[in-house]
């Protein structure tokens, strides 16, 4: 299983390490031809405006949409969640996206960096709590009918799945807990 990490900007190295630990082969994706060579893709944490602009500039929005529509598994964390969201609400937009995931998100909804936090979450299908790191994180304000909520924080969804798409407000790649990446690699193997 060859899993790409979109490497335009962000915490690429951490995702690659987590994917390798989950048994996948991780490769960096910066260009269209590299995207064509992977079985699944992680869109990492980073600045969603920057990654979105670079996706547009280097003509990756269209090819990525096509791969998603044809069933490739994609996991987005934080910025990756914003880039997959159908809708961004609030005054901070993210104009360049692949709006395949039926959720509404709000950027920086938990506040500025001084409000970034760690907490424990209960995740559907996990026996033990998951320690989660939220950094200038987006919130999920609404989810569509086909979206399964896997975890909530203070009553709002923070981890969701819809078909071949997985997305979280938080960063499992920043801890040594490999369960989320194993879940994604299993999804990718089935898709």
């Amino acid at each position, binding site marked *: 299983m060859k899993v790409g990490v979109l490497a335009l900007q*962000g915490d690429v190295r951490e995702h690659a390490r987590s994917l390798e630990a989950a048994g996948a082969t991780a490769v960096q994706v910066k260009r269209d031809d590299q995207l064509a060579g992977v079985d699944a893709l992680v869109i990492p944490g980073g600045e969603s405006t920057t990654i979105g602009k670079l996706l547009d500039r280097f003509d990756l929005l269209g090819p990525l949409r096509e791969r998603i529509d044809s069933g490739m598994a994609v996991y987005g964390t934080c910025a990756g969640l914003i880039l997959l969201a159908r809708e961004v609400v609030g005054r901070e937009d993210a104009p360049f996206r692949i709006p395949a995931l039926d959720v509404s998100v709000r950027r920086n909804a938990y506040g500025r960096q001084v409000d970034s936090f760690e907490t424990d979450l209960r995740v559907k299908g996990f026996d033990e709590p998951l320690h989660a790191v939220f950094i200038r994180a987006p919130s999920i304000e609404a989810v569509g009918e086909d979206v399964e909520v896997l975890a909530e924080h203070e009553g709002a969804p923070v981890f969701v799945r819809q078909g071949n798409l997985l997305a979280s407000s938080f960063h499992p790649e920043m801890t040594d807990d490999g369960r989320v990446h194993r879940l994604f690699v299993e999804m990718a193997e089935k898709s």
Partner: protein
Amino acid sequence: MSDTQRETGSARVKRGLAEMLKGGVIMDVTNADQAKIAEDAGAVAVMALERVPADIRAEGGVVRMADPEKIAGIVDCVSIPVMAKCRIGHFVEAQVLQSLGVDYIDESEVLTPADEANHVNKWDFTVPFVCGATNLGEALRRLGEGAAMIRSKGEAGTGNVVEAVRHMRSITSEIKRLATLGGEELMAAAKELRAPYELVRECAETGRFPVVLFTAGGIATPADAALMMQLGADGVFVGSGIFKSGDPVARARAIVDATTHYEDADMIAKVSHGLGEAMVGINISDIPEGERLATRGW
């Protein structure tokens, strides 16, 4: 699916924001209009300051934290993280910046130092700090004081990349050397580096710098940015190089593109076309010793 409480200001969330900035460009801005240009170009963050280093060098005088009014204006106009500089050792400027809601504080040698012996005790803050360093010992002392991110200093405001290269090579080669040492040699190495033993041991064991390491000071072209990335920087700070050039909009964007595709010479060539005049550079040997910014910090 309920939850437990939130823990803010931990080393992990402080270092974590820096992880999210990797592969990106952080641009010096002095007002909201410049901040918008930086964001539109694809900057991952902006650094708010009173004057860019080239002007500081030209005009002289005591240089302090930027006017809170200006910082608030910049915070309001962009959605990317906003950083701001405080003077070395000026912990009250740092308190003010934290109160203004900036996302990262740069305790910077570009401003006039407020304390000639001590840096800010950065463990006291919820907001994370980035600090400059010219070598590994200095970088690890800053981590010992609680910095969550380091940038090689270079020589700000010169448009001359030579010092940035020297400092980055110095840090990476010292880490490589540590990795070859036996455990019994590490205390002597820590003594030589004048750095905390535990951090020296971490570098030796992992062969890596413990936190995100950006570069700064003298980067003026897309090729400069790519050079620093190839030398091992996790990302790039650009100060005077953008807004002191002929066409800031085009240059800002080209430096972002070259930082992303830093290993792709064809791409760097392509984005380097037609950027107009680069900022006028200064040879380091033409700057009197006492006016070199990189020597500030202890």
